[in-house]
């Protein structure tokens, strides 16, 4: 039970982010996009919990709506990576030797290419938007999934139950669906939560650089970028979205760690 502390801490932190995002659909304290010069740079407390920014927008409301962007980015980027990477990895582990080599060498090539650079290039060609950023991050994360899926597949394929299934006349397709996928699902879930954290961070970095979410849609990364010029005067404007990013990233990493322990087959036997 002691081991599951990180799992529970992860669930609480991620739950916080998800909860805030859900609430923001129905209610925010103020309109996050409303520019009101009369309330510029108010300190925290009172009507504006976290204060306002240089345009008089409510920081708390922006943060809440920004959580949506963050989760959206994570889900789409990780979704792309997992849905492409996992089957590729299974294919590489079960297919002919040359096919496996081809898939793995290609994914090495992608892995060698910096994800942010890819995102910036795609942004330059197709225009900066949340979607291009997510697709770029997704593509760049495909190799991680292919890699762990292949490693897991090789392990499952070498077991005697797969040999028994083959001796029973089962096709490769059946073995992949009935034996390989269920048995590697644990490590894929773990990889997803870790990749989620990386995607959240990458979106923040891209928005900060101006290649991510376009204004006026609130995003934690862009809030950070806009706080830049006032960093010395109003550090609060950077600290608050910074803390939000840290909480989300930490939450997903803890969740990944906790899930890893839970899916560890050695622990499973004891349960």
């Amino acid at each position: 039970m002691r081991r599951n502390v990180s799992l529970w801490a992860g669930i609480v932190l991620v739950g916080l982010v998800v909860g805030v995002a859900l609430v923001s659909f129905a209610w925010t304290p103020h309109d996050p996009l409303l520019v009101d010069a009369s309330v510029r740079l108010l300190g925290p407390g009172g009507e504006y919990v976290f204060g306002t920014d240089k345009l008089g927008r409510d920081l708390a409301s922006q943060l809440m709506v920004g959580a949506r962007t963050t989760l959206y980015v994570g889900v789409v980027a990780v979704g792309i990576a997992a849905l492409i990477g996992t089957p590729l990895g299974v294919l590489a582990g079960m297919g002919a030797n040359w096919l496996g080599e081809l898939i793995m060498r290609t994914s090495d090539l992608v892995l060698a290419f910096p994800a942010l650079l890819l995102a910036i290039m795609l942004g330059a060609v197709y225009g900066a938007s949340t979607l291009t950023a997510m697709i770029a991050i997704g593509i760049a994360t495909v190799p991680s999934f292919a890699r762990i899926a292949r490693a897991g597949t090789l392990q499952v394929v070498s077991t005697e139950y797969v040999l028994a299934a083959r001796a029973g006349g089962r096709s490769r397709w059946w073995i992949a669906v009935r034996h390989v996928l269920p048995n590697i699902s644990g490590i894929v879930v773990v990889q997803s939560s870790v990749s989620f954290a990386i995607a959240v961070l990458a979106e923040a970095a891209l928005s900060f650089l101006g290649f991510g979410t376009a204004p006026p849609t609130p995003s934690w990364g862009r809030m950070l970028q806009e706080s830049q010029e006032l960093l010395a005067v109003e550090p609060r404007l950077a600290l608050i979205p910074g803390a939000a990013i840290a909480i989300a990233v930490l939450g997903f990493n803890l969740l990944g760690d906790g899930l890893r322990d839970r899916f560890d087959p050695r622990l499973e036997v004891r349960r």
Partner: protein
Amino acid sequence: MISVSELERTYRRPRTSLTGRRPEVAALRGVSFDIAKGERFGIVGESGSGKSTLVRLLAALDRPTAGTVSFDGRRVDDLPERELGFLRSRLQIVFQDPMGSLDPRMRVRDIISEPLGRSRDRYERVRELLDAVGLPGDSGERYPHQFSGGQRQRISLARALAPRPRVLVADEAVSALDVLVRKQILELVDELVQRYELTLVFVSHDLDVVRRVCDTVAVMRHGEIVELGAVAEVYDAPQHPYTRELIAAAPNLTAALSRLEEE
């Protein structure tokens, strides 16, 4: 029933350097024998003798480098997977590891019915099979980890019998079991082979176990058969020095006890 001729299998080791050639290892070097219908054929050898490679080739789970394997008069060593359907139902294997050979995430009834496909009466057959291997009828609902090692081996046997095979291959099927459980499983194998008129191929490193269930035995070493004959002859009058060494090395309770008496 099964005929093996001049069978060879070499493996390539993974490259150890970028430029060097991949070293080759011969797992089987020219193995020939015939197994008659209804025979109980034992294969004895230590680790590295090539017996596991041989099992894979018999089941057409791997392809030989040279030589042929025939099943019921048909060559199976060069057939593509889609034409192996007849072999897949007529030859079944039971493996050593009673945990590793059952998918931990499947229910026992799905494990046993796996070779049956989606036929409607498959769970009916599962109950029949569970009964045949001496497991309670409600075992099908449970998962492999809820069973003991001996029970898991019974599940493996039930799965192997599901497609009504003609040949049962046991690959170190009792090696991981305790003496008492081993005895029960050996008796069960014996009974099932008789009841379903199976041809048995029994592979083991343990001479004693082979002696109990087989009538013919092949002794393997370094990828070759060094001695082949009726169990009684090979055990009582071994011809090859390696067979003699194996028999002498096997721990023998009676001999050890009489030695204690002398001391």
